[in-house]
């Protein structure tokens, strides 16, 4: 299905957020995810199903002022 990950269109096979992270080779505990502008807590990544057209933001700490 076609989703938008960090602003880019992507065709993915994964059915949920954990699957998406695996498919895109993300790993580590330094990530947070928003699905359609709603934060999905880490504990619910496995049970959060993805739908065509979803907007996913995968976020990490960065330098800031």
């Amino acid at each position, binding site marked *: 299905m076609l989703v938008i990950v960090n602003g880019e269109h992507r065709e993915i096979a994964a059915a949920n957020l954990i699957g998406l992270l695996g498919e895109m080779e993300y790993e580590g505990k330094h990530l947070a995810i928003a699905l359609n502008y709603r934060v999905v807590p880490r504990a619910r990544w496995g049970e959060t199903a993805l739908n065509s057209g979803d907007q996913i933001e995968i976020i990490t*700490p960065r330098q800031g002022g």
Partner: protein
Amino acid sequence: MAAEMVTFYGKTFSSRLLIGTAHYPSPAIMQQAIRAAGAQIVTVSLRREAAGGRVGKAFWDLIRELDVTVLPNTAGCRSVREAVTTAQLARELFETTWIKLEVIGDDETLQPDVAGLVEAAAILIKDGFQVFPYCTEDLTIALRLRDAGCSVIMPWAAPIGSARGIVNREALKLLRARLPEVTLVVDAGLGAPSHAADALELGYDAVLLNTAIAKAADPAGMAKAFRLAVESGRIAYESGLMGARDFASPSTPVVGTPFWHAVS
């Protein structure tokens, strides 16, 4: 004398210098500068992580080594929805309910969108956040932020990264006079330690800056200079500065001056 402690949402700190973590020549120099500043609170941000990326983890490990309190920001957000979601992501990532709230309204000046700021602050406070709003020096906006539940308010001195120091001095003095119970922080636009001392002398509780230290030829040296200026400014404020006046007043006693009242 030791200066008084400063309080942010019930937590007390001895350092009144908050610094950012961006623009340093290297991670090691960033750590040296934060230590030299004596900073106990540092600002961090959130950005998209590229697939397979480890950049965020490396930075996060560096910050954890410093044992400082982290204040995440919503830098770059241009709408209430973006800022609220970014704050919620920051809470998830950094496990803190503190947020430096920025809603930018103009790309040229990076001037805060103060209407959006008040709206986002109210939403986040209802959601359990302690909000540090980055705002202009406008009194009514500061009053609205206070009424929404902000006990820390952070007006700019000048546009971010401009190094101009306090541009609208009278407005900042008015904010201090009208919001005695609020922890006020001058955030953005400070270029020199004297600018920071100026803010503290006006009774501001703290300053937050980044570029002036990070872009110095010697960031750790500049961080120390800012630390001393902030301490100096605060001690001066607590000690009671004399008021300015229009005319001279001799510092040497007049009585007994040789030839005083001599008839010529």
